């Protein structure tokens, strides 16, 4: 009986293809929007998570802040003694990479390029998970003596040298003539638009002496050893640095300690909230789609008044007519939902492909969309179906 009614409904929908498509359009667009937004949200979250893993999830950034109190404006930088004290005094650390850096100009032949110049040690490559495409790290001698050597990122290489092998060539960094000894394997753009490969590294001492002319360390990057508690390391760093920088009891820190994984959690949170919010807006368009179904079903009931009269005259019960229209509305909603899911997933594949974000469909949201679109069909189809079932057969038969 119900199977027969489903067949009748399908035939009715097939016979009015244009009307069916237009009616389902609201649901199709709503479901499509929900699917695309959630899939993109998933993709971005995964992408950013992966980038943070690329930075090194167990990484802690330590940087100096301005003092509170009377010397508010003065930022006391770190120096190598702080770095050595951390190496010796804080347990649970695998690597400590001191660094300093700024924007700077590099020149090769008649090519200029503005990039980021960083002075650091070989630990820098370890904590930031850089791999060498060619060449080598700094030697102990180069680091200790502050020799003019540098390691370049792929963007710098492409700009200055094109496809040419850069090793052994001399470039000018600000006023320092520098020999290229290594090339880093590319990491690509971050989601935030930074080009990770647009950088040039030299020994920290070279940077301090030849570029800036001081002995400051701007940032200390600390990699927590595997299996060690990051919070314990943070607590150790904090008490050591408060002591070394003579911060009185009760005063706030004049430095900051940031953990990449904590930041990642925050970013994921924000992305999650955004996805939900935009998803909720898309849900509103589903409701509008449902009202569209109600509208067309009401028109359809009027249009088919005579047909309803025939059915009632030859022995259909009111509930038979009610079910026929209800099932028709449900199928309409479900078909719209399925179409929306298919189109949404298709467009998601396309958009994620264009944006270089991974395509991660969510089964939960697909099932949710299918169930809700059918449910919307039933909810918004109920009133038209009720109206159809309550028609007076005599008047319905007389309807032109």
């Amino acid at each position, binding site marked *: 009986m119900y199977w*027969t009614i489903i067949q009748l409904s399908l035939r009715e929908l097939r016979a009015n293809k244009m009307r069916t498509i237009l009616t389902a359009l609201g649901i199709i667009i709503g479901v499509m929007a929900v699917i695309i937004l959630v899939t993109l949200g998933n993709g971005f979250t995964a992408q950013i998570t992966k980038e943070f893993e690329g930075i090194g999830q167990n990484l802690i950034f330590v940087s100096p802040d301005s003092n509170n109190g009377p010397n508010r404006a003065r930022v006391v930088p770190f120096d190598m003694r702080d770095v050595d004290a951390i190496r010796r005094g804080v347990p649970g650390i695998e690597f400590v990479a001191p660094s300093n850096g700024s924007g700077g100009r590099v020149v090769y032949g008649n090519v200029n390029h503005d990039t980021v110049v960083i002075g650091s040690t070989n630990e820098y490559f370890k904590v930031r998970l850089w791999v060498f495409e060619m060449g080598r790290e700094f030697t102990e001698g180069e680091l200790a003596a502050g020799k003019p050597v540098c390691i370049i990122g792929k963007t710098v290489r492409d700009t200055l040298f094109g496809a040419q092998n850069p090793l052994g060539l001399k470039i000018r960094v600000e006023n320092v003539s520098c020999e290229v000894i290594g090339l880093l394997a590319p990491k690509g753009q971050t989601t935030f638009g930074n080009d990770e490969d647009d950088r040039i590294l030299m020994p920290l001492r070279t940077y301090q002496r030849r570029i800036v002319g001081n002995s400051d360390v701007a940032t200390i990057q600390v990699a927590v050893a595997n299996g060690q508690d990051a919070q314990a390391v943070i607590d150790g760093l904090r008490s050591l640095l408060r002591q070394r920088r003579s911060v009185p009891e009760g005063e706030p820190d004049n430095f900051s300690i940031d953990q990449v994984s904590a930041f990642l959690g925050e970013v994921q949170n924000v992305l999650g909230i955004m996805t939900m919010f935009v998803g909720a807006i898309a849900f509103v368009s589903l409701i509008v789609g449902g009202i569209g179904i109600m509208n067309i079903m009401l028109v359809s009931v009027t249009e088919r008044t*005579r047909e309803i009269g*025939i*059915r*009632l005259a*030859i*022995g259909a019960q*009111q509930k*038979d007519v009610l079910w026929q229209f209800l099932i028709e509305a449900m199928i309409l909603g479900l078909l719209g939902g399925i179409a929306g899911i298919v189109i949404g997933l298709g467009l998601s594949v396309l958009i994620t492909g264009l944006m270089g974000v991974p395509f991660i469909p969510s089964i939960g949201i697909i099932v949710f969309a299918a169930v809700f679109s059918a449910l919307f069909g039933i909810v918004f189809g109920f009133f038209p179906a009720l109206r159809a079932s309550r028609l007076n057969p*005599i008047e319905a038969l007389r309807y032109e």
Partner: protein
Amino acid sequence: MNMQTGTAANMRNATGTQAPLIAFDRVMKVYGHGDAEVRALDGVSFEINRGEFVAIMGASGSGKSTTLNILGCLDVPSAGSYRFMGAAVETLDRAQRAMLRQRYLGFVFQGFNLLKRTTALENVELPMIYMGLSARERRKRAREALAKVGLADRENHSSSELSGGQQQRVAIARALVTNPAVILADEPTGNLDSQRSHEIMRLFSDLNQRLKITILLVTHEEDIAAYAPRHMRFKDGRIASDETRA
């Protein structure tokens, strides 16, 4: 449903004894109130037995359509009693009357009233869907019914591909297929030319004589009514004459 338990005794009684199939007892039908009151039927009484072929005639507004609506359990009397197969129809609710139409009444309309975009076979199957018959049983009985009206070769034509006469034959097959106690035909030849009209009437006559189906025919054309042995004429909501040809 309820009707089956509530009136089954009545029906068994009715079929056991030779009570009339249809009995109108001082049936009134009033539309509107006060000054606007219209008496469509004004105390009409008659009986029809199984196997009869009755032509109900009269000018428009004479009450013949109202009578047909009540006979078809589409409407109920304002006063008086209509007994169909022993059941007092005015005491039944909408669902119970729908059940009576489904099981015991077949309708043939002036405008054919087939479903659009639907084949002849599917149109004939329609009432059996609501009876809950299996698809195989529906198909078998629909084929038999179409064969009875001479359309065995038109099963898969949709109604728009059939001529008016053929459409009316499909409608008759649809009315026949449930083996009803009565077929109610409301101006069945009104939309047909004279030749097709007589073909349809010969079919009704044949169904009545060979299959002993009770047929009630509403018409205002004398030559159409001539196929029925009994003529009931309505005038101003009353029966003006009720004659049976010898």
